[in-house]
């Protein structure tokens, strides 16, 4: 039996699992389809709740994989189950026999243009959470020109929405929206900032404090009601309509910038690999764990493991926990087979 573990996906999940398994003495091969490691984390500016720089976290995660073999710009071309191992052919021509495969393929952001009524890709002043992070990171976005006077955030875009095909809550967007609302107020101190929410799901440690800070220190106005439609006026400002469900009245406001909190869906590149192995998916499109309490890291196939957002929306700390848990699950799998 060989000592090889293939990890699919070089985001924070794949990086942490690589570092742990490498330390345990396994021969880890990390496969990433993009030209750099880090996944979505590499494109983010700051992280909730305290606003730690994403780059600091990523640099640490990358430093920790010291010695792990990784391939960039590389996809899994085929993967076959043999008698005791998996035969994996990569797009760079390399073939690897691996005893265990870890799916750390993560998530895709919900394509916000699918919610046509919000006008992403149609109106110039509608952007997504990822666009705003990119703006905070680089200071550049052709859609943000003069300092906006009124900024809106729409929670649950492509989440809790059966018509968008996603009934589930994406878990991280509430905290992200509140964090970004505070940052928007820091970047544009004269702006009024509105958050349109249905429920605020501030479940984690420090998240409720973040919400309180957004209200008290930044004066962010939270309006309970889902935005129903967005239109553009002659000055290319946005007319946003919703119901203020706390007063039971329709509400209208003109905004200079609207940020859509796109949720999480299973990563399509990961699904492509999983389909080669006929791995199961739940109704929500994420992979099915062996069971939902005791065996979150195991799939229904021996030797195939899961970690991170490929089994449902997760925060970064959740994902890192799962990466470590998967390393232990894989270690136990090797021990049982000896």
């Amino acid at each position, binding site marked *: 039996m060989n000592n090889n573990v293939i990890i699919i996906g070089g985001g924070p999940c794949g990086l942490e699992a690589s570092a742990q398994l490498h330390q345990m003495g396994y021969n880890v091969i990390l496969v990433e389809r993009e030209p750099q490691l880090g996944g979505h984390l590499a494109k983010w500016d700051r992280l909730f709740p305290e606003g730690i720089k994403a780059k600091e976290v990523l640099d640490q995660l990358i430093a920790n994989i010291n010695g792990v073999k990784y391939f960039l710009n590389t996809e899994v071309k085929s993967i076959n189950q043999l008698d005791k191992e998996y035969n994996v052919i990569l797009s760079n021509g390399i073939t690897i026999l691996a005893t265990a495969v870890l799916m750390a393929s993560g998530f895709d952001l919900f394509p916000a243009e699918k919610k046509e009524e919000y006008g992403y890709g149609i109106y110039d002043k509608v952007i997504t959470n990822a666009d705003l992070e990119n703006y905070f990171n680089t200071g550049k976005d052709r859609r943000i020109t003069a300092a906006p006077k009124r900024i809106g955030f729409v929670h649950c875009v492509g989440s809790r929405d059966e018509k968008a095909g996603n009934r589930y809550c994406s878990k991280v967007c509430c905290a992200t929206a509140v964090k970004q609302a505070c940052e928007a107020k820091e970047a544009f101190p004269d702006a009024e900032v509105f958050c349109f929410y249905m429920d605020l799901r501030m479940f984690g440690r420090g998240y409720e404090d973040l919400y309180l800070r957004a209200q008290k220190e930044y*004066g962010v106005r939270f309006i309970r009601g889902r935005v129903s439609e967005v239109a553009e006026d002659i000055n290319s400002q946005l007319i946003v309509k919703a119901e203020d469900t706390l007063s039971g009245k329709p509400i209208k406001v003109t905004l200079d910038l609207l940020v859509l909190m796109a949720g999480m869906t299973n990563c399509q590149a990961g699904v492509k690999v999983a389909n080669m192995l006929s791995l199961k998916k739940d109704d929500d499109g994420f992979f099915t764990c062996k069971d939902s309490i005791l065996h979150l890291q195991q799939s229904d196939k021996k030797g195939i493991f899961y970690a991170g957002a490929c089994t449902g929306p997760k925060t970064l700390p959740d994902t890192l926990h799962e990466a470590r848990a998967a390393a232990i699950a894989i270690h136990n799998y090797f021990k049982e087979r000896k």
Partner: protein
Amino acid sequence: MANFGYSLTKSSRIDLNNRNIEKWNRLVELEPDVLKCMACGSCTASCTAGKFTKTSLRSAILYLQNGQEKEALEYIQSCLLCGKCFMVCPRAINTRHLLLSISKIYSNR
């Protein structure tokens, strides 16, 4: 105006573009804790006067934020200043003090 046999109903839509926030800003300056309200409704539920009159501090804050001053004042004019809402507010807003400040800034009397 000519009588056509029908009349137009005024829109009940809240228009955040045209609200006057000058008084609201003054209130925030005087009572920064007003921003802490998360609309839980504890104040309204515990209100002694609320059983008999239209009294709800939660609603008054909301209407002030929406620029509907007249409606907001209707929600606090029957307040007896008993202070029960102060005891139940989970975010420890000094509701009694807030009510008096709202009256001071917004009331015409």
